[in-house]
């Protein structure tokens, strides 16, 4: 019976991690698809989202506990956490704004990508400077952290929330891309930036919008992910790594690819760690190499 228990738990963990990875990777792939810029500061924005979310949520919770204890009790820490997530979105959006303004001065995909590397290093070091090197997590609100029984096994409610959030994000992005005016323009821009400009659309503003959207989503994922996975210096590189693996497996620029890639990476990571311990990384690397060797554009990517 313990093996059944372990299997279900590993499966659930893999799904949860995959769900988080999908949210992380969707911003990454959206920006790449439109602008052909690989945002290497993506992991750093995730980390910053975690830190900002942590500071905002703990500060608000403390203030609330001191001034209106009854409300704080009733909300079960929900206010602080929610504000933390919002603050993370703002922080991520702001960094994206700065990055886009910088990138406008640089020509060529490669130089633009290198610029994001410089920003990644700067943000990573600034975070270390401000928040120090200790691992941190945000406190989940009581309302969404009660254990839920799944297939007879109690599972942390917050992790189910993460899965739900990822599904909502996916649906939201789908509606945005395929059912809205902005989405039509974004998809047209992915096909042919020049012609989008030539029919009177300000491509610079479009890039800014998408960049900020991607940055805010990444910041949010930092706060939401940082509520169940501890973050610390180095998390930025780890997150960039898995995000890249997800989009390389799934295909750059494809939302469907991101979701499939995220599930594959999440499950391999979870089962690898549970059943193969230190060799798990070979499982993941091997998958990436296999995909790259036989399908350079990823499972759902367009040939470049």
């Amino acid at each position, binding site marked *: 019976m313990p093996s059944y228990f372990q299997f279900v738990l590993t499966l659930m963990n893999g799904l949860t991690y995959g769900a988080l990875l999908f949210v992380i990777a969707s911003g990454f792939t959206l920006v790449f698809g439109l602008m052909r810029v690989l945002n290497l500061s993506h992991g750093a924005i995730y980390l910053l989202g975690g830190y900002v979310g942590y500071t905002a949520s703990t500060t608000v919770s403390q203030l609330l506990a001191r001034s209106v204890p009854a409300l704080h009790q009733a909300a079960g820490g929900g206010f602080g956490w929610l504000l933390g997530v919002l603050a993370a979105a703002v922080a991520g959006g702001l960094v994206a704004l700065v990055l886009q303004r910088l990138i406008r001065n640089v020509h060529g995909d490669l130089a633009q990508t290198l610029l994001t590397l410089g920003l990644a290093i700067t943000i990573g070091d600034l975070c270390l400077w401000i928040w120090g090197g200790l691992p941190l997590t945000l406190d989940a609100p009581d309302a969404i952290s009660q254990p839920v029984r799944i297939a007879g096994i109690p599972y942390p409610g917050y992790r189910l929330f993460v899965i739900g959030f990822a599904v909502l994000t996916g649906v939201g992005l789908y509606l945005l891309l395929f059912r809205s005016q902005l989405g039509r323009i974004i998809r047209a821009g992915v096909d042919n930036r020049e012609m989008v400009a*030539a029919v009177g659309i300000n491509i610079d503003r479009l890039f800014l919008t998408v960049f900020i959207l991607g940055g805010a989503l990444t910041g949010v994922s930092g706060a939401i992910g940082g509520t169940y996975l501890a973050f610390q210096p180095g998390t930025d590189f780890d997150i960039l790594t898995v995000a890249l693996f997800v989009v390389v497996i799934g295909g750059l620029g494809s939302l469907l690819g991101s979701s499939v890639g995220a599930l594959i990476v999440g499950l391999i990571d979870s089962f690898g760690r549970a059943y193969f311990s230190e060799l798990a990384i070979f499982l993941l690397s091997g998958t990436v190499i296999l995909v790259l060797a036989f399908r350079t554009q990823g499972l759902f990517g367009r040939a470049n």
Partner: protein
Amino acid sequence: MSAELLAVDDLHVYYGSAHVLQGISLTHRGGVLGLLGRNGMGKTTLARAIMGLVPVNGGTVSVGGRAITNRPPHRVALEGVGYVPQGREIFPSLSVHEHLQMLSGRRKARGGDGWTLQGVYDMFPRLRERHNVSAGHLSGGEQQMLAIGRALLTNPSLLIMDEPSEGLAPVIVDPLIDKLRALADSGMAILLIEQNLRMATAVADQLLIVSSGRIEASVAPKELEDDDQLQHDLLGVTMKA
């Protein structure tokens, strides 16, 4: 005479060290102005330079009296220049309807009602039949209709068309000529870039011959059509095979 719709003055464009446009000047006051010339003579570069898609190294471009030299493409489009590029450049990820939906109502026409989605469908009924089809799956002629419809929805006062007949079978070129003629008769000013002598002479009111980045001559279509020797001198080709 009405105000200049388009004025290009002594335009120079370089690609690296190649001097592609070597001082082109032209004015467009309405009707259909044709630019005729062989491949590689700088016709497409001229269109792209007007649209702001390639940097201009010297000279000026103005639309309706307002300078647009080296303005970003979307500003040029908002000044009322519609662009039907060479190769059509439709968006393969969008359906026909999405192409038109994306642009309808974005830019108001200067006076009058302006183009609507339905107006484009009325002009090209074929597009209405194919409205749910992904643009990447359209035939060349259908793509050309879509590219024209897309440009019309920006409510241009001047339409630049770069080789609309390229790669189309003669049986498709003929109705296209009729459509362009009808468009011109409705008052749309067109700058028509062509290699196809038949199309250019059938649609244009006046023809400019471009060679090696310069305007070589200005002729009436009728004159060129009837004079094989002139065709040969200016273009190195004749209509008779």
